[in-house]
């Protein structure tokens, strides 16, 4: 009887443990999220950020959405001998303890069908979704291209 109690206790703890371990959204720290201001009349832009994984297992960003866009896709650029090829990616992985940076010319959130123009200084709410279904809302600061360099210095590039 006592043994059975122990077993169920152990089982109970095992089942309960994911609640203590935290979700991907808990483990991922967002660094300096921003989106590029778009020239007048355009409806496509790109969003950038750093993701630091404070947990002990790999996490993956699998989707993103925003009320201000018709669609957000995860994209990357491949520089193939000077030819830039933009392609969607299924997910963006962040190694445990590591940081993955989305930045101009590489990985980015492609913000499509913008419902209103992005003006520098505005904040744009974007919801990130991770592999375990957990979500995190970020406030991306809209920046004019002249402000991008500041960002890169901050990011240590």
């Amino acid at each position: 009887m006592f043994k059975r109690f122990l077993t169920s206790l152990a089982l109970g703890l095992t089942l309960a443990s994911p609640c203590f371990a935290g979700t991907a959204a808990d483990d991922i720290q967002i660094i300096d999220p921003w989106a590029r201001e778009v020239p007048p009349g355009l409806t496509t832009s790109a969003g950038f950020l750093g993701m630091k994984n404070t947990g002990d297992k790999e996490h993956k960003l699998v989707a993103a959405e925003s009320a201000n866009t018709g669609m957000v896709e995860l994209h990357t650029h491949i520089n193939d001998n000077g030819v830039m090829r933009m392609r969607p990616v299924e997910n963006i992985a962040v190694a445990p303890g590591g940081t993955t940076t989305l930045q101009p010319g590489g990985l980015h959130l492609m913000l499509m069908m913008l419902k209103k123009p992005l003006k520098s200084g505005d904040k744009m709410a974007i919801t990130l979704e991770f592999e375990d279904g957990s979500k995190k809302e970020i406030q991306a600061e809209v920046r004019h291209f002249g402000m991008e360099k500041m960002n890169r210095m901050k990011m240590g590039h």
Partner: protein
Amino acid sequence: MKIFYWLFLAFLMTASTSHAWSLFSADEEERYPGMGGDFTLRSAAGEVSLKDFRGKVVLIYFGYTSCPDVCPTSLGALSAALKKLSSSEMDQIQPLFISIDPVRDDLEKLREYAHYFHPKMIGMTGDLAYLQTLAKRYGAYFRKAEVENSSLGYAVDHSSTIYVVGKDGKLVDMIQHSGSPKRILEHIRGVLAY
């Protein structure tokens, strides 16, 4: 003894000058043989030809306004580099943005787009067949690529190079895709000093 030293020095100087001269003229003649050349395109302010800018250094970027990241990155860096130039340097420069997407980019949109990056930048386009030949002559590459799992439908694979045309209308430099205003500035100043 001293006279030999001076003679030797004089010889060295002549040799090095003539050597530099031959390098210089070779550069001027054959830097990019068969590439570049004149063109005439449409802008919101009317027809514009490369010939209109003889005596200026012309910076040409091929792209399209719905290009979400590569074009704004390059044009933003170009713009930041141009802002570092003095007004007398800027007087010798003409930046051009050539859209290879005439179906979606009308002239007014191009004017606004180019102006957004630099007040002096002229946005222009032309007929697709003409643009394709022109891009090829400069070595720019564009190709529609079908993309699965994206609402884009297709993406445009393209090169991202700033072509630098000298004051005589000849292609003299190419600045490969760069988000670095510093590197672009070095190239522009190099051509201005040329």
